[in-house]
């Protein structure tokens, strides 16, 4: 009962019912039109014929008297054409015609009557329905002219029945189809909402069923599944992050706590001072990590999107190069810039500068080797309809297969463990790039690492 109620409430069923009503109405209208055209028009036509016959016979009576009238009726009755004639005298006796007696209804006055009469056929006597007009003439004569309407009546009845059944069948089929359609729809919607409930209950691996027909429900399910994929990825990321955060923040906090405890046990002021200084340093480092995490989270949440303005990529690259050039030279390396002019992008200057700073900083930290002098190249160039801002170095690069991993939060390759840092630099670069609708690509610079921010260009040409 409840299922059928639910069925009736579905939008598909309602649509089907509405369609059915419109369909039934139009079928009814068409049949009514056919009925009117055949039955009513034919009836009117035959009535007119009868009327014409009456008036022509009446004229013969006035012109030629009863004798001529009787002759005409007799001759017409003989070529039986389905017409009925009867002429009676003052006493109601038949004088001429092919009907035995005047029907009771036609005893007085004039007008239309319908009556049954007997027809002789090969199989015997049949009762047929007739329609006739009767009118009194002078001297007590009464004239009746009619037609056999049996066939027409049967035809009308047939059309009526057809109309009834056609409507009936349309309604039955329409209802059945509607129910079937809605049940199919309902089943799929039910399975989608069922799946979403299990997902809400915590099973993120569940996916909406896709029937493979590519209809709108499939598209909806597909989109929901994509959304779920992304949520699942984020959730997995979150789990990793929280365990990484736990590790990377707890370690320095434990160290800090132990140091304070140890200092409290000592009596020497110099020891206290040294411990406090180290604690301050450690606190600053923790704050930096924390701030980096916050800005990644904010950037990933897209909160900084409002800060995007039209800017020029080349200028930014030159600014960063200018900021870092002394530092690179101090480290015994060289920094070169290759920036095409007029590369318009839509960006947040602060975030992009921070991303580039992180990349140059990484190059300084990890690319310096004993074998060759450090070379860092900052570049901005057009590639198709994108602007590629790149930081390339000639260091050992990132081992194959690791480039996906290094972007994750707190991930530091073993080689980098000995250097200061928190493993958040590339995560921020990646977050900034996706905020700008671009991608971060880590490539082999042969040798070294080439980190490319592929950003959408806003068409400086156009």
């Amino acid at each position, binding site marked *: 009962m409840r299922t059928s109620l639910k069925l009736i409430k579905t939008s598909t069923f309602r649509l089907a019912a509405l369609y059915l009503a419109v369909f039934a109405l139009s079928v009814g209208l068409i049949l009514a039109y056919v009925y009117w055209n055949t039955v009513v028009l034919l009836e009117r036509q035959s009535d007119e014929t009868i009327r014409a016959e009456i008036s022509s016979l009446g004229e013969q009576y006035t012109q030629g008297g009863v004798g001529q009238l009787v002759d005409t009726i007799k001759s017409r009755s003989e070529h039986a054409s389905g017409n009925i004639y009867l002429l009676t005298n003052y006493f109601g006796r038949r004088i001429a015609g092919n009907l035995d007696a005047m029907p009771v209804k036609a005893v007085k006055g004039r007008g239309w009557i319908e009556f049954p009469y007997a027809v002789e056929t090969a199989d015997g006597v049949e009762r047929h329905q007739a329609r006739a007009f009767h009118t009194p003439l002078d001297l007590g004569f009464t004239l009746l002219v009619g037609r056999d309407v049996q066939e027409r009546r049967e035809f009308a009845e047939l059309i009526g029945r057809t109309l009834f059944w056609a409507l009936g069948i349309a309604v039955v089929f329409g209802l059945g189809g509607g129910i079937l359609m809605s049940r199919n729809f309902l089943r799929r919607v039910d399975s989608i909402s069922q799946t979403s409930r299990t997902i809400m209950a915590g099973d993120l691996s569940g996916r909406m069923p896709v029937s493979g027909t590519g209809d709108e429900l499939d598209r909806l399910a597909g989109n929901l599944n994509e959304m779920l994929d992304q949520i699942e990825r984020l959730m997995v990321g979150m789990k990793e992050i929280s365990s990484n955060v736990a590790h990377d923040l707890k370690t320095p906090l434990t160290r800090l706590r132990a140091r304070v405890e140890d200092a409290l046990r000592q009596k020497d002021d110099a020891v206290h001072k040294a411990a406090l200084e180290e604690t301050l340093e450690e606190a600053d480092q923790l704050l930096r990590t924390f701030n980096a995490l916050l*800005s990644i989270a904010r950037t990933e949440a897209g909160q*900084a999107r409002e800060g995007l303005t039209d800017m020029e990529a080349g200028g930014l690259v030159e600014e960063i190069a200018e*900021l870092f050039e*002394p*530092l690179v030279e101090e480290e015994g390396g060289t920094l070169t810039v290759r920036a095409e002019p007029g590369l318009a992008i839509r960006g947040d200057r*602060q975030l992009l500068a*921070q991303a580039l*700073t992180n990349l140059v900083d990484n190059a300084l930290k990890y690319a310096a080797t004993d074998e060759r002098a450090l070379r860092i190249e900052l570049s901005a160039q057009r590639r198709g309809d994108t602007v590629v801002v790149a930081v390339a170095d000639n260091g050992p690069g990132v081992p194959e297969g690791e480039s996906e991993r290094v972007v994750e939060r707190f991930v530091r390759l073993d080689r980098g463990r000995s250097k200061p840092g928190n493993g958040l630099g590339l995560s921020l670069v990646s977050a900034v790039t996706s905020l700008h609708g671009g991608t971060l690509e880590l490539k082999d610079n042969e040798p070294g690492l080439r980190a490319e921010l592929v950003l959408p260009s806003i068409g400086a040409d156009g």
Partner: protein
Amino acid sequence: MRILVIEDDGQAAAYLLKGLRESGHVADHACDGEEGLEAARGKVHDVLVVDRMLPGMDGLTVIETLRREGVATPVLILSALGDVDDRVTGLRAGGDDYLAKPYAFSELLARIEGLVRRARPEAARTTLKVGDLEMDLLARTVSRGGEEILLQPREFKLLEYLLKNAGRVVTRTMLLENVWDYHFDPQTNVIDVHISRLRSKIDKGFSNALLHTIRGAGYMIRADKS
């Protein structure tokens, strides 16, 4: 200087007040927005230090109200919200400088002193001078002891900022913000390298150094008093 601190956290305020008094300033304290607004209306303070998140009336509202009433006392906003857009809303509300919590006390002090200096109307100077170092802002030349020193445009800007704040501590963050207009922590000693380049240009070969490193705080340019 007389400084009004509007800060609801008792302990944070106590440290701050203590630090300011130890640095030779007079410091008043207000625990919430309404009280702070009342105290600031007196216009006796040289600078206001306003926490952004206060019970009742928040810091930005206090600043907006004061600015509407024509109180022009320089305001330093202190806030746990430190991103660029937070900064922008703070400065738009009428703040003159913005410092994210947690902060180093030396940074706060340097910024307060910078604010007060900026607020005092100064004659449109075309030359800046410390000791025998002279900067001509019109000709964009620098000389020391009558000898011209050639500087890159960025070095010139860096020195100009230092000279405008001569005798005061200028932190790395202040330099990054005011000379490069970057509002993030580059996590490297990139500013130190620029300073040491500048130092080699202006101090090398002279017996008395003008550009000093203030340990744990930043830099200061001053003519040696000794």
